[in-house]
């Protein structure tokens, strides 16, 4: 993973401070995360067996990770048997090389893409551009990000930091043929995207996707989406290349019955997302290539505490409930994986050599809301605390104090909190003094449960 993915040097607290001063951004984020939170809670509440599904989801992932080598080989055999070709990539450079060569072999210089975290992680678009290949994002949010020359800030809704009028501006400026009287009505904006991409879908010969799941037993790949751009890419082009992290595996076909309930409800807060595509090998005359990506995942797997992060199904529920994400925005995390999951995944995938990465385990108040909503029960606070202990001491301490200061805006008071940890909740002011007061004027300070905060201090002191 490139350490400069977002061109965002600095560290989490510095980046966050900038975001906190952007009131439009804060407003957009708050509105969006609160909308989705409410929807999630209501559709999760409909299922009497949610906790059983969650327990199954967690165990299926743990079992898969424990036997990952065996299941990957099984996956490879099944895909090959069904007419697909499997490639293995140790790191980003190797994956990019494989994909670029596959595209070149088709003779094409343009590809369409389905939104995929894995290809963002390896910075595939830039790697392809360097080889003279243009990659077109087709997901509406990715299109907004790409046209706006911007970076994604949320896993599910990469343009969550933009509101409708900003999106209209971007379309007017960057979309050829967009009508001058385009309004900022969401259906009108969606229609503009439809027209903009239609021809491209019909003429594209190569598509690149990721996958939400792959099933070892059958060799099946699964992509969940909403707009139909995924189906366009997966179905129409002659050649399909899917780049998938090795942890996306499920052992058996039956396991999908768990994850097709957990993911949509946690993610968009719907009973089911509009479209799910499943295919096994080369379908309807297509050429199919699967690129299995390691890129640091096996290092994460080797860490007894941290490996649970590989259970993540990228639903983004943890982002939507996180009081720190809501204030800081996704860009502050300096990686394609923002929010609580990013705070534990990024430092593990790329190490804690930079100031930014060493500061990420502090991008949290340890309130535990992320764990509560996680459909595969990743104990994010536990991993954060563990990473804090492992972070290079001086840099981490600096970052830790800064983030804490950013959260409380009062270093002295925080230092005292070490002795009065159990009474900490009472010390959190309702309104922050000084330059950050505007921040608290529009929202409440997060509640800090005393239990987890005490743990934090104990661990931190031991380290």
């Amino acid at each position, binding site marked *: 993973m490139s350490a400069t993915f977002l061109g965002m040097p600095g560290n989490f607290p510095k980046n966050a401070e900038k975001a906190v001063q952007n009131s439009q951004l804060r407003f957009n984020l708050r509105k969006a995360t609160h909308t989705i939170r409410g929807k999630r809670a209501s559709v999760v509440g409909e299922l009497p067996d949610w906790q059983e599904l969650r327990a*199954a989801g967690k165990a299926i992932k743990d079992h898969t990770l424990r*036997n990952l080598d065996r299941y990957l080989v099984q996956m490879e055999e099944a895909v090959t048997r069904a007419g697909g070709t499997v490639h293995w990539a140790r790191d980003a450079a190797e994956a990019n090389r494989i994909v670029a060569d596959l595209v070149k072999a088709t003779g094409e210089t343009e590809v369409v893409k389905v939104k995929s975290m894995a290809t963002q992680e390896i910075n595939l678009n830039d790697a392809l551009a360097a080889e003279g290949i243009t990659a077109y994002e087709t997901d509406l949010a990715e299109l907004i990000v790409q046209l706006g020359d911007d970076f994604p800030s949320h896993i599910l809704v990469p343009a969550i930091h933009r509101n409708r009028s900003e999106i209209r501006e971007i379309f007017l400026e960057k979309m050829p043929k967009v009508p001058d009287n385009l309004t900022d009505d969401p259906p009108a904006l969606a229609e503009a995207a439809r027209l903009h991409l239609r021809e491209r879908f019909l003429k594209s010969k190569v598509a690149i996707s990721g996958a939400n799941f792959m099933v070892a037993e059958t060799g099946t790949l699964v992509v969940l989406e909403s707009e139909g751009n995924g189906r366009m890419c997966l179905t*129409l082009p002659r050649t399909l290349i899917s780049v998938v992290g090795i942890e996306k595996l499920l052992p058996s076909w039956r396991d999908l*019955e768990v994850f097709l309930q957990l993911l949509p409800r946690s993610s968009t807060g719907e009973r089911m997302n*509009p479209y799910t595509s499943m295919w096994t090998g080369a379908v309807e005359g297509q050429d199919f290539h699967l690129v299995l990506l390691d890129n640091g995942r096996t290092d994460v797997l*080797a860490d007894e505490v941290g490996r649970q992060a590989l259970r993540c199904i990228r639903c983004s529920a943890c982002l939507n409930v996180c009081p720190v994400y809501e204030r800081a925005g996704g860009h502050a995390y300096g990686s394609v994986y923002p929010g609580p999951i990013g705070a534990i995944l990024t430092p593990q995938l790329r190490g804690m050599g930079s100031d930014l990465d060493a500061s990420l385990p502090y991008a949290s108040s340890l309130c535990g809301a992320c764990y509560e909503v996680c459909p595969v029960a990743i104990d994010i606070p536990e991993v954060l605390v563990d990473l804090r202990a492992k972070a290079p001491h001086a840099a981490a301490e600096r970052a830790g104090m800064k983030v804490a200061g950013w959260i409380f805006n009062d270093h002295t008071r925080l230092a005292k909190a070490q002795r009065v940890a159990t009474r900490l909740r009472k010390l959190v002011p309702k309104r922050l003094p000084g330059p950050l007061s505007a921040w608290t004027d529009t929202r409440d300070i997060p509640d800090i449960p005393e239990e987890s905060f005490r743990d934090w201090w104990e661990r931190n002191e031991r380290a």
Partner: protein
Amino acid sequence: MSARDEILARIGRAVAGAQDVEIPRGYRTTQQVEDLVGLFAERVDDYRAIVHVLPAAEVPAKIDEIVAGRRMIRPGGDGWEDLNTADGVVTSCAVAIAETGTIVLDHGPGQGTRAQTLVPDYHLCVVRADQIVSGVPEAIARLDPARPLTWISGPSATSDIELNRVEGVHGPRTLEVIIST
């Protein structure tokens, strides 16, 4: 060492000594639903799709009425052929799920290719009552992973603008479902 062998070796080292886990499957694999057709119709309607519930004998006339004057693709029958200029497509399905209001196509007879139910702006799908199951686990059990599968829950939609759902981006903007009883 090849990338494949190296990744497999790294995994072997990473998990050596780790405990395996049992998978608890205490969730519901089937449900008692009194009115499957009613629940399915209600959930499809929640996605702002159009739903009709009709006795099997009345279905052909209803289809004719709906598609009259439209250039419709009819997989396996006579109909419009060009994807790009078709007004819509009429298909059957493989399985339907009441709890989530989902129809699943396995692109068998009467269901067309994946592109045929995607490119035209309108999709009319006929679901037989005996194809409706209560929940996701029963649907998974009925489906064949060797076939390409398309799960459809309402019309194409996006939540990308301020996280509010808007119907209609690239897939069919109108989904109409006839449940044949």
